[in-house]
């Protein structure tokens, strides 16, 4: 596979893309020119403004097609690859039993004002996700799922009480970067409450996270869209059991 590629419309290398956006200006020729200018600045040239629609007197919606000049350099793609083996539930349980000699304690929650529990439940509940059972199903895990809208101080307190090995936090609402603010608040609280060596492994997840931002947000790992319970279980084993933590 070539290391440098371009988008594919209907021929190799044609670089074709589709863009849509709204500009806060009334619809006229100048507005269409403005749309073309923006597309040009995005590297689209020629930019075909194929659709423009006035939305009331103050806004115009555009659809633009065209050839983007940028190259995609596959060598420079930043991606968080799975750097641990994917284990079957049996192996997970066996390794926890053999090496940790006690269940691995996990606390889960939606923090802040987020009430979207379906995602964290998908990872934790027996029912699971995509045909895989959740962590509660594993003999090796002791799961405390605190549910929705858990205040950070409460989460920290419970994590301490149950001596959590890992804390799993879900964040689904992302408007105004709510998920980032909440995560930062959470990591700060854990940093404050636990000495570095005793701090539980911090994991966040949700469909709109950028998995490469873990360090920036102060968590150990981020899981995005479509994560399955086995991935999380395997990661926890790798991170906590495999490294002989505690």
């Amino acid at each position, binding site marked *: 596979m070539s290391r440098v590629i371009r988008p594919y419309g209907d021929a190799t290398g044609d670089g074709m893309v589709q863009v849509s956006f709204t500009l806060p200006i009334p619809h006229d020729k100048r507005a269409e020119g403005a749309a073309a200018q923006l597309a040009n600045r995005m590297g689209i040239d020629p930019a075909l403004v194929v659709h423009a629609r006035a939305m009331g007197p103050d806004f115009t919606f555009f659809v633009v097609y065209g050839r983007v000049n940028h190259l995609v350099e596959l060598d420079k793609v930043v991606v968080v690859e799975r750097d641990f083996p994917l284990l079957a539930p049996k192996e997970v349980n066996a390794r926890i039993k053999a090496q940790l000699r006690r269940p691995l304690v996990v606390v889960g929650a939606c923090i802040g004002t987020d009430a979207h529990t379906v995602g964290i439940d998908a990872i934790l509940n027996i029912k699971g996700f995509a045909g895989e059972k959740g962590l509660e199903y594993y003999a090796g895990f002791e799961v405390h799922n605190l549910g*929705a809208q858990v205040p950070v101080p409460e989460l920290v307190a419970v994590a301490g009480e149950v001596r959590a090995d890992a804390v799993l936090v879900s964040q689904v*609402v992302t*408007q105004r970067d709510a998920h980032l603010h909440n995560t930062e608040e959470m990591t700060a609280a854990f940093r404050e409450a636990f000495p570095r060596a005793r701090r539980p492994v911090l994991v966040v997840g949700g*469909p709109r996270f950028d998995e490469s931002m873990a360090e920036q947000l102060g968590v150990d790992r981020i899981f995005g*869209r479509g994560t399955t319970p086995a991935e999380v279980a395997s990661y926890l084993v790798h991170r906590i059991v495999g490294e002989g933590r505690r």
Partner: protein
Amino acid sequence: MRVALDPVQVARARGLAASAAQPVLAITREHTTVSIERAVLRMAGLEGADAEGIPWVNRLVDAVAEQVGLQHGVALPVWDALAAHRRSGVAGGADPLLTLAQRAAAGSVQFRIPQGRAEGSARTAALRAARGGVRRVDRQRAVRERLLARHPVEHQPWVYLIVATGDIHEDVPQAQAAARGGADVIAVIRSTGQSLLDYVPEGATREGYAGTYATQENFRIMRAALDDVSKELGRYVRLTNYASGLCMPEIATLAGLERLDMMLNDSMYGILFRDINPIRTFTDQHFARQVHARAGIIINTGEDNYLTTADAVDAAHTVTVSQLLNEHFAKQAGLEDWQLGLGHAFEINPDLPDSFRLELAHALLARTLFPDAPLKWMPPTKHMTGDIFRGYLLDAFFNLAGVLTGQGILLVGMMTEAVVTPWLSDRDLALQNVHYVMNAAGRLGEDFTPADDGFIATRARHVLDEAVALLERIDADGLLPAIADGTFGLMKRPADKGRGLDGVVARAEGYCNPVTEVLDEPRPAPRVAGPRP
């Protein structure tokens, strides 16, 4: 379009719902809550907040609770104290209630449960104050009726759009743009955290997350903006918000005072999806619905939510059961059929064979069971993905099912459902989708007659049978235990858990709520109706 149902089975379902609701209604009659008491003060005209943003109604109710408890209601101690103030010559200013609240917050008021003559005059004064508020509500209702007569909305379904920027000043232009694009109803979604706040924030707000705070001032701003655009368009654009969460009774009151037209108000949503205590929720809900009934507000129930956590085929009958319960609770609170926007949703997994026919069956079941209610039809959300094209397609079939089955209120789906709260352009595109479907295929129902023994009618009857079976179980075991068991939306909520329980108070003998007393007085019949079913 209707499906053939066995009338005996329908009657049985209604009877079971009434019987299952009975014990819960009894409980609500024995309790009050902090929010109901605050609502009484709001109805009496107490507005505003202290320097920290804590509303004066909270300050005053808290002070009363601390000193004498709320088991007699807030009215008697408060109007008793007001009388004492007056007697002792404390400067009441233009707003003696506000002055009282301020002084109470400062710890300078001594409350008591008045007895004898004092009780009588406190009650009378409270009733007068409450009646003033209710009159304001009545006036708003009359204004709505006048505006509707001038700018009528004849068609159906009503097209319902959500606005959710978090900033009331961005919401306004977006709502107006949506109205110009064809929206009949604008709902301003609330910020994520609000339902768990045990107070209603004050003033115009710009800092919500994924929604804008419901405040009296925001209500006013948006209602005024929609009045402007209604005039411009010659079509009355309705405003909706959420009477839910810990402040449900107060928000219902503010909605009546500020002429909101519809309110999301479900008998169990707060329990299931906000983990609010069941007793708190049912009690608050009854009061809130009494106010809605008076205000001529159409409620929207929340059965759609169950299908975001449970499967829409397996749990179809739980929607029906909940609709029947919501109907009964609503009627008990004085709401009429035209005010019952019973909820359901297009949430069947689109990969399931015949998914569209199943949706039609479910939608027709609701349509046939509640022939006079303006059903609220919710779009696909759970199975929406980042594939916005597929999303636009699913929304089209949702719209088609809506117009084919005569839904009253169509909450317009957004192609970006799985991505962001709706953008201005999402709303415009969604409206184009609705309008194409209504215009091109709106009357297709005339050509379409599901056979009595066909797939659709058979499925509808099957769901009704399942609903009756579940109602039998609930009636036998109790509604509260059923909620505790995860019957609805797979959420397990025991009656003794959940938020806001500490705000529930058992009423004492002699409990006085001037607002419900006024609402219970006889009055003339209403004139405005919902979308014709």
